[in-house]
């Protein structure tokens, strides 16, 4: 058997786990690991410019590819800088393993240089964490970390490794375990057959059904099964922000996104439904509006891998714990076996009603914003043109704010894993580093980061990483010269008192900034040049291009649900502002 040091074992274990790319940043406590990394070529390391970006890049890599993202950082500030990205991955259930160096074992607890209690600090935002005390434990710990991160409801796992454990002079026998068994961790493998039966009966009896699906369909690779089930039943489908692409946006059964900035037809259909089939979605507050008024006439079937997500905010009538993909297949089989059909007459009436809603206020059949009369570019149009230029097939990452909602509403994702955003935590600065991760996973694909001048400046140091590793992502900056979403809320709820959202002419010249990093910058201020510049941008295959697009700064994101404390009627899914002048 081969003798390896702890540092070597760690890197070898990553290789044996099938890891190709690690995003990280070296430092004192991680030096032995970095030395082991240097002496091999199976695992490629991408040196970011800030540890937050390492986690977001690994996160984007994971979301796009389905593989577990891997991060390597040092102790102290290296570890704490990674926290925001770990929390981001945790909230969106993204498989990630974060290896952090730690000060030497005998120094732990003594406030040593660059010491922080990483296991403690990360505890509320990880699925699990390990502190490795002996080098011999490294292979089994890494195996467990990947197993826990990627199975059940996925999530980030931290492995904290004291420096002495990786000492190059202490060698041990290395073998990587083939499998892993943890007695207290056994995620459900399939749905309960009794519950499946009840669900099928309710599904077939429904007169006004809606299928509501979330990130679980994406993470659980259940998109094809969802399409199969939805087509078989002919029921309308809506996706959460995290679930976009789980059902093809261009399909006529798709109602668009639901929730705070969901479409009129999706939110209204949910409110009036008599049955909701929720799959891999967690009835988040950005979906339900006030839970007391949530869909008063609806029975709820809730499929989720995580029992704690069921009946957490909204009570489920039929809970089904299990992997979404397996459970959807079980439902399909049970429906086929029953030989029964949904009530076609009722379904026709339901679709007639939905089509009428769609016709009246729909996002896709009628503009939800005023057509531009003048020169000011509407941000929604930028997204439509992005869709056109990329053939609707780009990987789109985003930051957080109005641009994120416009991208979610108007790009029209037809495939899973194409839409990559921080939905749960809402992390500004996520867009560029996550785009790098996607590009690393899919070097030949178009990767667009839709961002705003506010969010972009939170992680723009990564432009340098893009240069070093030739990661030619395209950055679509919807520049409204303000923190747009905050501004929108200040317009709507604070009588236009713009507290701390303006930069007062301090924005950099983004074109020059790009040139400083060796990239291409384009400034776009009018419709005349928007599409041609966008074509030019994506034609530059091997360059990072930043399109600084000046958009109408007064634009708001609509529809927008009216919260329970807003002017009545308010608080239900169906209560929405539809534009600056209209409401339901």
């Amino acid at each position, binding site marked *: 058997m081969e003798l390896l040091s702890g540092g070597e074992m760690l890197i070898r274990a990553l290789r044996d786990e099938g890891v190709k790319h690690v995003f990280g940043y070296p430092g004192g406590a991680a030096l032995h690991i970095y030395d082991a990394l240097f002496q091999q070529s199976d695992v490629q390391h991408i040196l970011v410019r800030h540890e937050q970006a390492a986690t977001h890049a690994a996160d984007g890599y994971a979301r796009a590819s389905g593989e577990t993202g891997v991060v390597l950082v040092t102790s102290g500030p290296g570890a704490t800088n990674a926290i925001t990205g770990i929390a981001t991955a945790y909230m969106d259930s993204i498989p990630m393993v974060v290896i952090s160096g730690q000060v030497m074992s005998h120094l732990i607890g003594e406030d040593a240089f660059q010491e922080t209690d990483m296991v403690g600090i990360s*505890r*509320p935002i990880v*699925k699990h*964490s390990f*502190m490795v005390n002996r080098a011999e434990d490294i292979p089994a710990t890494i195996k467990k970390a990947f197993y826990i991160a990627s199975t059940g409801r996925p999530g980030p796992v931290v492995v904290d490794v004291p420096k002495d454990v990786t000492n190059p002079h202490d060698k041990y026998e290395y073998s990587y375990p083939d499998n892993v068994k943890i007695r*207290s961790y056994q995620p459900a493998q399939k749905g309960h057959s009794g519950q499946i039966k009840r669900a099928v009966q309710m599904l077939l009896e429904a007169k006004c059904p809606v299928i509501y699906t979330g990130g679980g369909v994406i993470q659980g690779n259940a998109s094809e099964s969802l399409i199969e089930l939805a087509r078989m039943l002919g029921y309308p489908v809506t996706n959460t922000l995290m679930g976009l692409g789980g059902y093809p946006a261009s399909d006529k059964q798709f109602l668009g996104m639901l929730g705070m900035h969901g479409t009129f037809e999706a939110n209204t259909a949910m409110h009036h439904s008599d049955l909701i089939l929720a799959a891999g979605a967690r009835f988040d507050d950005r979906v339900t509006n006030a839970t007391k008024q949530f869909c008063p006439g609806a029975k709820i079937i809730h499929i989720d891998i995580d*029992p*704690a997500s069921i009946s957490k905010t909204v009570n489920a009538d039929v809970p089904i714990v299990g992997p979404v993909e397996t459970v959807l297949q079980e439902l399909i089989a049970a429906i086929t076996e029953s030989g029964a059909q949904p009530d076609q007459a009722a379904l026709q009436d339901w679709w007639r009603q939905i089509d009428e809603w769609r016709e009246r206020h729909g996002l896709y059949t009628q503009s939800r914003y005023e057509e531009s009369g003048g020169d000011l570019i509407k941000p929604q149009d930028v997204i439509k043109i992005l869709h056109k230029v990329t053939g609707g097939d780009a990987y789109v990452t985003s930051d957080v704010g109005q641009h994120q909602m416009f991208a979610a509403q108007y790009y029209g994702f037809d495939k899973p894993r194409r839409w990559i955003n921080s939905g749960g935590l809402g992390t500004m600065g996520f867009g560029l580093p996550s785009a790098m991760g996607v590009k690393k996973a899919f070097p030949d694909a178009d990767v667009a980061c839709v961002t705003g001048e506010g969010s972009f400046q939170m992680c723009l140091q990564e432009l340098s990483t893009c240069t070093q590793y030739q990661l030619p992502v395209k950055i679509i900056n919807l520049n409204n010269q303000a923190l747009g979403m905050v501004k929108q809320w200040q317009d709507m709820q604070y009588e236009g008192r713009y507290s701390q959202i303006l930069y007062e002419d301090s924005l950099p010249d983004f074109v020059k900034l790009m040139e400083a990093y060796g990239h291409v910058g384009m400034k776009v201020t009018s419709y005349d040049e928007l599409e041609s510049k966008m074509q030019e941008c994506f034609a530059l295959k091997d360059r990072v291009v930043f399109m600084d697009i000046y958009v109408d700064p007064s634009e708001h994101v609509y529809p927008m649900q009216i919260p329970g404390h807003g002017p009545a009627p308010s608080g239900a899914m169906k209560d929405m502002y539809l534009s600056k002048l209209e409401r339901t």
Partner: protein
Amino acid sequence: MENEPGALSRVVGLFSQRGYNIESLTVAPTEDQTLSRLTLTTIGDDRIIEQITKHLNKLVDVVKVVDLTEGAHIERELMLIKVKASGAQRAEIKRCTDIFRGQIVDVGIQVYTIQVAGTSDKLDAFIEAVGDAVILEVVRTGVSGLSRGEKILSL
């Protein structure tokens, strides 16, 4: 739960993180040295207790969760209480201790240290019976519990 460093902090952290309250908590290794058994008391409606149970089950270090109040069960708590005891008080306190089936486990010139075991209610009642005025110090272990009858918590 696994008898591992950090396991307890995950349980305790879960309660503070999600805004649940811990009334009492006891924990120690079991006959199987790889396992610790933890008895925790908390208050909440059915929905909250269900959520707490589900979240505890999600913790990788937690092997099994049982709500003892779902069935007949035995609860015990141990209290050590130091009281001022001089003159006529000494006999009175001794009587009170006997009534509660407690034991005087240490004797000083001016003080008694008394051990009382039982349900939390009984311990509360003892404190009330001896009266605030003479109590010098109280330490309670928190509740430990087991279900009654043949039912056992095993893996």
